[in-house]
């Protein structure tokens, strides 16, 4: 928190299908530039106290659309329960998941005004993906190592598929949580989506 929390605490994303046919190769400069631009934009808006909650949510939605592969994250997060969802439920789930991430992250960023980040290095993966390692400095609560996993596809360009905070993958953590809830609900998809839609509601 320390871990936890730090973990913190905090959490979101993905499930695993094998590595991909859709991924294209990218250079480390491309990966670095992508995170640099997106990160600066996100931090400048989300940690600004004077910005209204609505404007921060709207900005984060735009960043999420532009920078994250929500469908990859959503599929990964469901694990083996992915196959239980029909097409209509999957679409509803993606929309609900995105709304939940926005509520959750905008709220979390608000707790760390004045935070800054810097890129430490880029690790190119063997599967055409890349991991950009950054350090996020949060005044008053120290610094955190945050890694961003990226893929590039022909249709979407570069997209983030996982965020790893101090060794904790948001995707793996979320998959564990989602799988547990789905098992608890005996695979009731509609009830699962309903619960998801309530997370972070004021």
């Amino acid at each position: 928190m320390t871990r936890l929390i730090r973990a913190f605490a905090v959490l979101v994303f993905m499930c695993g299908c094998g590595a991909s046919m859709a991924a294209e190769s990218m250079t480390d400069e491309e990966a670095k530039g992508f995170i640099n631009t997106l990160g600066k934009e996100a931090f400048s808006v989300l940690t600004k106290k004077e910005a209204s909650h609505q404007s921060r949510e709207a900005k984060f939605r735009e960043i999420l659309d532009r920078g994250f592969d929500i469908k990859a994250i959503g599929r990964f997060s469901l694990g083996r329960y992915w196959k239980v969802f029909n097409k209509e439920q999957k679409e509803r789930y993606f929309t609900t998941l995105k709304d939940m991430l926005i509520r959750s992250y905008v709220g979390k960023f608000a707790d760390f005004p004045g935070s800054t980040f810097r890129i430490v290095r880029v690790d190119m993966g063997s599967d055409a993906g890349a991991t950009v390692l950054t350090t996020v400095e949060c005044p008053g609560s120290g610094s955190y190592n945050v890694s961003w996993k990226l893929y590039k596809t022909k249709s979407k360009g570069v997209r983030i598929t996982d965020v790893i905070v101090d060794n904790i993958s948001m995707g793996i953590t979320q998959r564990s949580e989602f799988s547990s809830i789905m098992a608890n609900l005996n695979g009731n998809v509609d009830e699962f989506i309903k619960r998801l839609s309530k997370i972070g509601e004021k």
Partner: protein
Amino acid sequence: MRNEHAMWFLFFLTLLSGCASHTSKTPNLRVSEDNDPYEKANRSIFRFNVMLDDRALDPLAGFYGRVMPSVAKTGINNEIANLKQPLNFINYTIAGDGSSAAQSMTRFFTNLFFGFLGLVDAYKELSPTPPPTGLGFNGALAKRKMRSGPYIMLPIFGPSSPRGIVGLGFDTFADPIYFVPRPKQRIYYGLARYALDQIGSRQKILQAYRQTKAEALDLYALVRSIYWQNQRKLEGAPAGGGVAADEGPAPYDEDDD
């Protein structure tokens, strides 16, 4: 007598340390993935820990954060961290990491002599590279490739495993710092240090913890996942967060629908 009562009170505070949470009685469907064959019992203990956490650690950490001046909190955190360095030295040595072991002892003596007995982390200021983060006996065993065994939720202490329990016992009884005070004072000293460590650690992440807890769909599953990811990192999982490239999400292909 009064001191004794104070120490028992501090012992009670330590109840706060274990992680926490609530919710669902999940059928035991994911034993292989979560390595949690005792999930039902573990969830019961977890609920107990969360209850203690809600009633003791969380309010105490909040109180500590409000009344303690920032400079005092930093000094206490530094002191506690420095007192752990001799044990870090032992565990890094067992793990075969001579460099981190040497840095731990250097940090201990540097802070002792040049950091007002450890209240200031002089070593961190002087060192060109960040000091090692510290290592428990569980971590040393993990680095020696000992398997963890199944997930076990301990009352008060939180998530663990058979390897973690061995580590906890070793760290409790082998810490050289415990042999410095007079024998009668060891238990008090140990409890006080543990309680302050837990309260200080929680205070640093109080808001994030509360929000995470409030937003968790299943806090038990969340804590378990974080625990295993940390263990995997100790066991030498790859860089980039200890998550192998093929473990994360792959790009979404519409044909998968």
